[in-house]
């Protein structure tokens, strides 16, 4: 019979991302999402690693595209709220 050591462990790196005078861009958020979806170990078989990287790049394009769509749609919603509140002049600064 063998008895293994059991440890309560604190995990991998916790990262802090910050911005100044703006929010995160879709591209920046997409990278965070990609890290949750797929990770490629540096020691992986090169063929598998290449396939994983190609998959990661495809997923990145999809994420970025739809995040931009979400941003545009949210701006439409905000513009409608501003217009309904009688502040149409503020819509222009949304870009």
């Amino acid at each position, binding site marked *: 019979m063998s008895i293994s050591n059991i440890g309560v*462990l604190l995990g991998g790196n916790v990262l*802090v991302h910050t911005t*100044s005078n703006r929010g*995160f861009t879709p591209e920046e958020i997409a990278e965070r999402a990609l890290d949750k979806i797929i990770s490629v170990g540096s020691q992986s078989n090169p063929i598998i690693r290449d396939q994983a990287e190609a998959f990661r790049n495809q997923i990145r394009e999809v994420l970025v595209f739809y995040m931009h769509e979400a941003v545009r749609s949210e701006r439409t919603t905000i513009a409608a709220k501003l217009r309904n509140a009688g502040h149409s002049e503020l819509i222009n600064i949304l870009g």
Partner: protein
Amino acid sequence: MAITQAMCTSFKGQLMTATHNFTASTGDAFYIALYTSSATLGATTTAYSATNEVVGTAYVAGGNLLVNVTPTTSGTTGLTDFSDTTWSTSTITARGALIYNSTSANKAVCVLDFGGDKTSTAGDFTVVFPSATAADAIIRIA
């Protein structure tokens, strides 16, 4: 005064008395509070304290409520995770953080050391948790 990244020792003991429930939605409420470099936090921290907690725009004392990910297993490792959390439109400078259980008398779970002061200025301050894997998840029993 220092912030030393650690799983709190009291938390390890409390795991054996079923003090914490990380189940998503129906489990306990876990918060993450931010601290300045003046704070003293580490393995001996037992509960949330407002001493040397961050004061800044869009930061409310006690920190952000975390979204739990229901514990699971991978191979021979048990693990749990939290969703990333953001203080939006904030002006904050923080050196570290404490995750604690507000459902259970604010008992400490773990201390995070950011490795240096992190600052947002009228922007977003986001804590990004590692992937929920056996190798990287924020809380693991292996």
